[in-house]
């Protein structure tokens, strides 16, 4: 390649796209009323508020322990339930296991579920079951099925078909093939994905808590609403600790399974 080739000419075809991008950003800034003065005012207000958040209200620490535990338990219960159901959806959505009609149905359900934010699921469930951890558990479990089911189905579709043929060739039933070839090949991946999902769920449960699932997210929301900012800081610290610990734990477990 000569230098003359390595020039602006090569990037010329990106010009229209770049122009459209810039116009779009400018237009949306205008439409959403972004203004630099507002930005400055917001930052200053935020900074002045920030002083109210410090120092944290250490005495609130023991009030936070129980809600943090509730959040943790919600995730510890919800994730395995979601993982268990994702096996059903994963199998139903895999091309090399399920008949076409079942596969399409399962893939559609998974896609719809993945399209719905947990918070929407929670709001529906709260309407049905009322406020509280139970609705939170259900929302997170359902929310986990989509991601875990899709990853599982993809993993199953990647299994070498000859391995499955070889097990079928000894006279095994389709269910035996699933039990003795499909599941052993994909379960470690499912466990690893579930643990990752557990981390995601810990974060999500904070938000869900504020909406009505209880736990530490609710404490944070309540503290801010009552203008007890240093208490809110304590809740944030607790959340950070929770997220940090769940990350450490999941890294540790993952290193054991894979």
């Amino acid at each position, binding site marked *: 390649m000569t230098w003359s080739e390595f020039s602006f000419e090569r990037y010329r075809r990106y010009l229209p796209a770049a122009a459209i991008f810039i116009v779009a950003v400018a237009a949306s800034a205008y439409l959403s009323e972004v203004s630099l003065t507002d930005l400055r005012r917001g930052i200053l207000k935020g900074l002045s508020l920030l002083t109210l958040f410090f120092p944290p209200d250490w005495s609130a620490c023991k009030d936070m322990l129980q809600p943090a535990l509730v959040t943790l338990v919600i995730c510890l219960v919800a994730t395995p339930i979601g993982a268990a159901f994702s096996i059903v959806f994963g199998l139903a959505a895999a091309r090399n296991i399920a008949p076409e009609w079942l596969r399409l149905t399962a893939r559609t359900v998974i896609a719809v579920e993945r399209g719905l934010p947990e918070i929407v699921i929670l709001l529906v469930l709260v309407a049905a079951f009322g406020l509280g951890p139970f609705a939170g558990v259900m929302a997170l479990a359902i929310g986990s099925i989509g991601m875990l089911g899709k990853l599982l189905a993809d993993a199953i579709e990647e299994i070498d078909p*000859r391995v499955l043929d070889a097990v079928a*060739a*000894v*006279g095994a039933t389709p269910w*035996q093939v699933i039990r*003795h070839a499909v599941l052993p*090949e994909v379960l470690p991946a499912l466990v690893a994905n579930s643990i990752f999902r557990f981390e995601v769920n810990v974060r999500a449960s904070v938000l869900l808590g504020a909406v009505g699932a209880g736990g530490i997210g609710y404490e944070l929301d309540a503290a801010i609403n009552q203008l007890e900012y240093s208490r809110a800081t304590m809740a944030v610290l607790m959340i950070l600790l929770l997220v940090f610990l769940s990350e450490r734990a999941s890294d540790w477990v993952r290193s054991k399974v894979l």
Partner: protein
Amino acid sequence: MLEVKGLSKRLPTGKTILNDISFRVDKGEFVALLGASGAGKSMTMRAIAGLTSVTAGEVVFSGESGKCYTTITASGKTSGKDLRRARRNIGVIFQGSNLVKRLPVLDNVMIGRLGRIHPLRSWLYGFTDQEASEAMAALERVGMAGFASRRTGSLSGGEVQRVAIARAIFQRPLLYLADEPVSSLDPKNAEAIMQLMQPLAREHPILGAFHQPGMVMHYCTRVIALHKGSIIYNGAPNLSAKQLDEIYCGQADRPEATQELTAAAES
């Protein structure tokens, strides 16, 4: 005894993959399928195991008891229970062996019995002590007893092939199909696998695909040569260089070449 009658497979595109394949394999035989890549060796064996559909033909086999099994009937592919009942009597050793890599070696051997035990029992992994010790004996026979608890994915090519043979032995079939069991192995390991299979064939016949005419001549009792889906030779394993040329160089396209080969085999 295995009897393959008029097996044909044509694709919807019109391409012929198997063309009127008929042959027998009798007790005590170790039959080698020879032929260039794409000749239809794998397809023939997949058809015998009922793993692929065919356009026409029939596959029947039976053991000492005289009870007959079939994977492909004249009316088409058998299905469900009958197919599984037939399959559990065929020990298939696949090309590249295709074991479940994440399972321990012993579990892979146990898979050989799935067709014979109640599905519910196998779901709970309820293999009996008797079955476990038989599986160990099968591993012993192929020299892999020390590997029983190893993860299958961590084995070498030769070791994997031995485990696949142990699985087939543990299956207690009436015949064995072996698709290129030694192709991926170095000469020493290939020789060792052939030495394992030779005595097995005396118990239950083996039909195997090979690419090593030298070894085939030494270990096998008969050769069936395929070319573009047709049988072009069915006879003694000691082939001349000229015959091998015809099997592998595609000159057998001409019908007279087929006659030449067969005549050479008969003389």
